[in-house]
């Protein structure tokens, strides 16, 4: 070969590693589509401010993992020899986002650490002040189970959709409107759908201000929306310390399968409320949750690889997730209406039932906004925070039931 030929040859070799060449291969168009979806997520996150803390990393993860030949989401490999009952490592390889996924997501570690941070940021005061609102957090979980039924039905009757009971449970949990809970459950029961489920969960949480108000107006009368609630009594520090321990104790006795989630949540809350571990609480709420959010977002986004994502299942998940969300909102509202009828002395504004889906604190803010539209002096925010955090507990409980029951029944 002449020198010129060698140069040309090298340029050709380089051409074989370009993204352009990759997109032109079989299935390459799919990567291009998913990169476009990634850019769309960035646009929605930045321009529309839809849950940007999660959707910016998820969008970037979707872009990076669909780059041909880059292998940024490649699984981890631990190189070494297996001798004397030990893997003697000398190297670790893999894509950097793939490593976040393998170590943090399949293990369930990242969602639990996020939950610690959420616990350290949560004020259960309004809930302790008005414990009845816990029931609204229960009612809103109907969405989970209706979507589960829908998923089972789709899996059975729609060709091209392959949901089994594990998948159905993971899809249903989108209705819990809690990102970490959804990711934790999906990582236990249905890893292949994790990407679509996480994206659906965070997208609908971001869309709460658009999805919920029409439902709220349809299911309540203007009079109901104007109901003023009694001011919440102040809660003592001791109550705030004992409440998370009470929930944890109940969970230990009745539902151990929910204790990783609720244990992490209540650990974070204790660390915040006890008043003697402020530096740990500070780190949980800032450095730790932020670091994990970055890595979790990228890792979740990396599950949006074209060959796994572009199929009918994903469409089904998106549709069912939306249904779950709407039904959860509705059942929350309906129970609040019912409770209002039976508690004359202490009126309950049915709008706060909608906050039972969780999506903290967005759903509570939406309640407040819809309430103010009807009566500019009726601030419902604190009243809605009760069902709102109850929704977090409610979906963790639902997750516990699914984790305990599905492997037995499937």
């Amino acid at each position, binding site marked *: 070969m002449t020198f010129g030929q060698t140069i040309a040859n090298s340029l050709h070799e380089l051409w074989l590693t370009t993204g352009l060449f990759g997109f032109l291969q079989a299935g390459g168009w799919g990567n291009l589509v998913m990169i476009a979806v990634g850019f769309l997520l960035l646009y929605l996150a930045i321009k529309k401010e839809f849950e940007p803390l999660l959707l910016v990393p998820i969008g970037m993860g979707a872009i990076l993992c669909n780059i041909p030949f880059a292998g940024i989401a490649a699984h981890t490999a631990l190189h070494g020899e297996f001798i004397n009952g030990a893997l003697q490592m000398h190297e670790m390889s893999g894509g950097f986002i793939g490593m976040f996924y393998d170590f943090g997501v399949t293990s369930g570690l990242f969602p639990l650490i996020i939950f610690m941070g959420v616990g350290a940021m949560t004020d259960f005061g309004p809930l302790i002040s008005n414990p009845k609102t816990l029931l609204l957090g*229960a009612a809103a*979980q*109907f969405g989970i189970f209706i979507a589960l039924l829908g998923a089972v039905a789709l899996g059975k009757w729609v060709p091209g959709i392959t949901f089994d009971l594990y998948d159905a449970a993971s899809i249903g949990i989108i209705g819990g409107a809690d990102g970490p809970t959804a990711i934790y459950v999906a990582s236990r029961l249905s890893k292949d759908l994790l990407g679509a489920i996480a994206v659906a969960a965070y997208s609908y949480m971001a869309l709460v201000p658009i999805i919920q108000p029409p439902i709220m107006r349809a299911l309540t009368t203007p009079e109901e929306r104007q109901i003023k609630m009694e001011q919440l009594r102040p809660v003592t520090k001791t109550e705030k310390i004992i409440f998370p321990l009470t929930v944890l104790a109940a969970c230990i006795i009745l539902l151990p399968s929910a204790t990783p989630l609720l244990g992490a949540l209540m650990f974070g809350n204790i660390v915040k409320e006890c008043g003697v571990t*402020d530096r740990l609480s*500070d780190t949980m709420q800032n450095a730790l949750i932020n670091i994990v959010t970055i890595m979790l977002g990228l890792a979740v986004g990396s599950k949006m690889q074209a060959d796994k994502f572009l199929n009918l299942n994903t469409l089904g998940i998106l549709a069912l997730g939306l249904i779950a969300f709407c039904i959860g909102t509705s059942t929350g509202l309906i129970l609040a209406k019912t409770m209002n009828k039976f508690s004359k002395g202490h009126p309950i504004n049915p709008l706060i039932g909608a906050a039972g889906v969780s999506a903290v604190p967005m759903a509570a803010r939406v309640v407040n906004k819809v309430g103010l539209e009807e009566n500019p002096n009726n601030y419902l925010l604190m009243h809605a925070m009760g069902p709102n955090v109850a929704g977090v507990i409610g979906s963790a*409980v639902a997750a516990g039931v699914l984790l305990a029951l599905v492997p037995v029944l499937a």
Partner: protein
Amino acid sequence: MISGLIVTIVGMLVVFLFLTLLVVSTTVMSKIVLKFFPEPEKPAAPAVRRSSTDADIAIAIAAVKAHTKQ
């Protein structure tokens, strides 16, 4: 399909039972606490993060002092 229905029924049952139990236990807990520990706690710590407090206060004081001298 059957198992889906079962999960749904058992699931909602447990969710409601569990949260109802929490309503009861939280109410009881609050009653006990308010009866036996009617806030003898130290005054609630300010919402400010402790770790940065010292530096912040130093700076705020410095700023106020600087202003006083003007």
